[in-house]
């Protein structure tokens, strides 16, 4: 799912070269940490968090199929 978050974030931001996603794989949960340029934070979060929520919906569905739990953390 790292590639999924990476490609979506790169498509949303102004500075795609500053998009970094790292994956922390746990037994139950895989945490995906997304870092973007400070000025691009609003682009990945969206108004009232709508964009972040949309990405999480997609991640949740993908996880359901794979019977895994993915959590997206947007790091500031």
């Amino acid at each position: 799912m790292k590639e999924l978050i990476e490609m979506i974030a790169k498509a949303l931001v102004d500075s795609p070269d500053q998009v970094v996603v790292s994956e922390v794989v746990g037994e139950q949960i895989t945490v995906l940490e997304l870092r973007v340029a400070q000025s691009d934070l609003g682009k990945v979060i969206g108004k009232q968090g709508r964009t972040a929520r949309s990405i999480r919906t997609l991640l949740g569905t993908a996880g359901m199929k794979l019977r895994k739990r993915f959590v997206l953390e947007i790091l500031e």
Partner: protein
Amino acid sequence: MKTEKEKRIARVTSFVKELLAAAELDLEFRCDAEDQGMTVHLYGHDVGLVLNSGARLLYAINHILNRAFYEPGTEAFNLLVDCNDYRSRRAEELEGLARKAAEGVKESSEPYLFDPMPASERRIVHITLAEEPGVMTESEGSGLERRVAIFPAG
């Protein structure tokens, strides 16, 4: 020479392909050019996942595409995601619900409150009842909680 619109449709097409593959969803899609934009039709094994809980995933994918391909200062480009004709089936359903609820409001003189819905669905309710005598509609609440209310009028 490809027009700007054709280039945009090609970019969206390759993005959707990559997105569905990366999310490991068992879905295929077809892109249709429209007068002022395009529609991405999803179909295949995982349509149930796209349409469950009020088509949450359908709206999520649509939102991501809208944000990713938003180009300020260019001509209007409406990017719609659809799945098994969900949009038209839901519109028909909402028109029926709106008319029925409006009758109830007229009989009881009590307001009727819909469940929260996305903007495009609220719009269908407003338009359906725009010319309906004896009732008026408004949206209230914010974000995910925004919902249509029908009030008695006149």
